[in-house]
Each structure stands twice: as C-alpha cells, then as structure tokens.
C-alpha cells in the first residue's frame, strides 16, 4: 500500500514537471504563432474576433516584406559574416594559448579578457562613434566588423579556451615526435580537432552581430550599410499605425536565421557555460 502511494506520488511529480515544461514552451511559442498567423492574414482579418488560423491565408505580406528588406538583409549578411571571420582570427590563437600553454601572466591575462564580459557596452557607443567619425570608419561595413569584436572577443575566448583545455594532453608532444614544430602542431592537429567548437563560435559571432541594434544604429545612417534590425526598428518605433501583417512577416524573416544558427551551435556553447 505504502509502496503504491510513493509510486503514485512520483508519477504525480513527474506529470507536474511535464505540465510546467509545456506551460513554459507555450509561453514561448504562442507569441510567435500569433505573429506568424497575422503575417498570413489579409488586412480585413486583423481586427475583430481573434483567431489563430486565418480564414483566407495569403503570402502577399511575405513577398512585400522580402522586397522591402532585400538590401538591409544583404547588409546584415555581409556585416555578420565578416564579424564572424575576424573574430575567429582574433580569438583562436589567444584561446589556444590560454587553454594549453603555461606562461607567466596567463591567469591575469585571461581575467583581463573575461572581465570585459562584465562591462556595460552601451557606454562604448559614445567614444566609438566619435573615434569612428574621426577615423573614417563611421557608416562603413569594416567599422561595424571591428566594433563588434569588443563584445565578441571575451565570449569567444571563454568558449574556445574551455574546448581547447579539454582536448587530451600530450597531443602536441606526439605531433612533435613526428617532426612538427609547435606552430605546426597547433595548425595541423589541434585546429582540425577543434572544428566543431570553432564553427560554434563562428555561428555565435554571426548571431551577435546580426542581432545587434545598439552599435549598428549608432554607427550607420540611412545612406550607409544599414542592417535589417535597424531598418525594422525605424519602421516600428512607437508602434502606431503599422501594417501588422507586413511588419510581422519582416520580423520573422529577420528573426529566423539567428535562431537556426544558434541552435546549430548550441551543444558547444552550453558545455562552456557549465559553472562548476
């Protein structure tokens, strides 16, 4: 009897957990479902009784949204890809040294980099706008590529170092036995082994850059390489008098690529975040 009781309670407990998880999933998915729903509704269905499934679905808004956003989306793509490539060149060697080589000042150097995570970046838009203006980087794509490294570097070093550190010991020594120099050991053995983590960090940098509003709004104008997020912001600020079908089509169009990239990179990011 008592045994049964405990089992019933365990079952109840598990069901309660399932319910909670489903409730959270609903809290996340429902807003997107409604956003998608309005993006395929004809304008006559925007008002009145709310309904999730449109009576007469149409993809007209999606076509219009794409025509509207073509240039900003291309800008975003170029900005985000370049940011990702530069971030890998800047952070892989550093992360490797911090993860696998012992040298004087290693700990301090690492903390200087990671402590930058705790910096409220909004402050930087002011001096960076001013400096970029004077250096001719204002309103240019390379200007954004460089500016984003400020918040990507600490993150990327953290995740990559974690991965390098966990690779088996002595790989480099084994490579040296076969006649590699230290640099060759890094380039020909460690780097290929780290491909998944490197790809994950590349994706993550892409996402950070694609998603950013603060720097891109401050550092570009309408005549320059304005990315998609800024162009969406400008049409929506205040939220009055918007064509919601078109706006939600644009919104989902901009929101989908980073989600796909992030979920692809997720496994390696999560591992680095486990705090012991």
């Amino acid at each position, binding site marked *: 009897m008592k045994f049964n009781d405990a089992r019933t309670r365990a079952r109840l407990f598990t069901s309660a*957990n399932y319910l909670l*998880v489903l409730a*959270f*999933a609903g*809290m996340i*998915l429902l*807003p*997107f479902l*409604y*956003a998608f729903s*309005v993006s395929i509704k004809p304008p006559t269905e*925007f*008002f*009145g*009784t*709310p309904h999730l499934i449109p009576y007469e679905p149409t993809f007209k808004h999606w076509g219009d949204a794409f025509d509207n956003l073509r240039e900003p989306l291309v800008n975003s793509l170029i900005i985000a890809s370049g940011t990702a490539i530069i971030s890998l060149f*800047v952070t892989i*060697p*550093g*992360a490797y040294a911090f993860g696998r*080589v012992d*040298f004087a000042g290693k700990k301090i*150097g690492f903390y*200087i980099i990671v402590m930058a*995570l705790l*910096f*409220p970046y*909004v*402050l*930087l*838009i*002011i*001096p*960076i*706008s001013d400096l970029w203006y004077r250096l001719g980087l204002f309103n240019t794509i390379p200007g954004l590529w460089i500016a984003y490294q*400020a918040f990507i*570097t600490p993150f990327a070093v953290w995740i990559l170092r974690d991965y390098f550190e966990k690779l088996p010991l002595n790989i480099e020594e084994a490579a040296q036995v076969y006649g590699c120099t*230290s640099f060759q050991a890094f380039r020909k053995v460690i780097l290929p082994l780290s491909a998944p983590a490197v790809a994950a960090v590349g994706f993550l940098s892409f996402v950070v850059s694609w*998603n950013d*509003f*603060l720097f891109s709004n401050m550092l570009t104008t309408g005549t320059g390489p304005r990315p998609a*997020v800024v162009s969406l*912001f400008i049409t*929506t*600020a205040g*939220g009055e008098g918007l064509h*919601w079908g078109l706006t*939600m089509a644009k*919104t*989902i169009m901009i*929101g989908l690529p*980073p989600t796909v990239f*992030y979920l692809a990179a997720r496994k390696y*990011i*999560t*591992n680095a*975040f*486990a*705090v*012991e």
Partner: protein
Amino acid sequence: MKETFLEHRLAYLFILPTLLFLVLILWIPFFRGVWMSLHEWPLNGEPTWIGLENYTYLFEWDVFYTSLKATFLFAFTTLIQLVIALAAAIAIKNIGHLKDIMSSIFLIPYTMPPVVTGTVWLYLLQPQQGPVWQYLVGWGILDSPIYWSVSGDTAMAAIVGVTAWTFWPFMFLIIFASLENIPDELYESARVYGAGRIQTFLKVTLPNLKSAILVAVSIRMIWNLAKISQPLQMTSGGPGYETSILAVLLYRFAYDRNQMGIAFAVGIVLLLVVIAFILVFLREFERDSGGASA
C-alpha cells in the same frame, strides 16, 4: 630551456592579437569616454572643456532622479528571469523525454534580435489589434484594452515583462548546464538519508547551483541594464522620462541631442550603479549561503 622559451614566445605571440583588440576597442575608447564627459562634445564638432559641469548638471536635474528610479524598478526584471529560469531548469531535469527539443524551444526568444521579439510584443500588446486585448476583452476579463504606453506604471510593467520573457533563457542556459553537472551520487545519498524533495532541493540542488546563479545573475543584471533596444522601441523612454532607464537616457542624449559629453557622464553613473548592484548582491549572497550551511 630553449624549448620553453620558444613555447612562451609562441604563447605571447598568440595572445597578442586578442589583448591588442580588447585594449584598442574597449579600454582606450572607455578612457576616451571619461575624457569626453569633461567636455561639451558634439559628434563631428569641436569639443569645449567644461570640467565637471556635465556631472553637476545631472545631479541638479529632476529627470535624472526619475531615470535612477526607473533603473531600479527595471532591475527587477533580473529577479523574474532568475525565478523562471530556475523553475524551467529543474522541471526539465525531471522529465524523461523531450529534454532536447524542449530546452531548444526555451532558447528561442534569446536567439532572436531583441528588436524582433520587441516588435512581436508590440503587436501582441497593441491596444486595437493586439490578440492579448482581443482575448481579454472577448472573454469579459477586461472591459476595454489597456493603453499601456500612456502611463508610467503600465509602460514600465510592459518593458520589464518583455525583457524578462526575452532574456530568461540565458540564465536557463547557465543553470541547466550546471544542474546537469551535479553528480547523481549526491541525490542518491540524499535519498538514502530519507530526504524529501524539498529538503533535497534546499540541501543538494541549491548549494550546488550557487556559482551558476552568481554568474548568471551578475552577467544578466549588467546586460539587462545596458541592452536598451526594447525599452527604446516600446516606449521611447516615455511617457515623459518615466521609463528612461539610465541607458536610455544616455542614448537620448547621444542620439537625439548630439551631446556626447553628458551622455557619457550618464554612462559613468550607470557603471557605478551596476558595480553597486553586483557588490550588494555578492555580499547578500555570501551571507545567505553562509547561514544556510552553518
């Protein structure tokens, strides 16, 4: 001996680009900003030295205190994020199936640009066309939609809620990863000693999540106060200045008024507020967990 020297040289060569970048685009701009805050400094114009006038102006300006108050209210979003993230991480650990797909779903709001999720909520909460009010009025819970953006309290509630909804997955990510790393033996022995669920949670789960919570709350607190696209987009800092948290105030000075010096002075105050939050939090956290284990 020669070999270690070479290895060291390679290591220094390797960390050079990383450190150089960080110095060039973080620390030099930061100190330049401090210098700028002592000037009247229009973008693309000639700066004029004014000493501490930007700071005295701020401290004598009523709106600055409205903004400080808004910042403290807005900071509660971090607490909401922690509660949701903790509940979600523990619930998902206790289910057998669907773990991967569910935890991926949980991350979605965080993976999208905040401007995107902000726009989605602008639609959902739009008084005339937003489904939220259509349902609440349709079901007879409300007589009429709430025009939330015209009053300070409801506008603040909206941005706190939307920010919490958007960013709790980041805390979930850290807490869930750490939860999975708690050794099963600890739970086994808790069971052997006859600990109930609540006791197990208090004596095993929570103490082992201590550092994770610490890291998650510190990072999130800073970023919540510094990421401003959603407040800016949803309320433009209004009505008046009632939802102009410090970061939004900074942005309004820089972007709308082209006053870079005073904008950075606001930034310095923001930095001090953030540091104060973190220090107080660390102290309380240490004291609490010290008491629990004693």
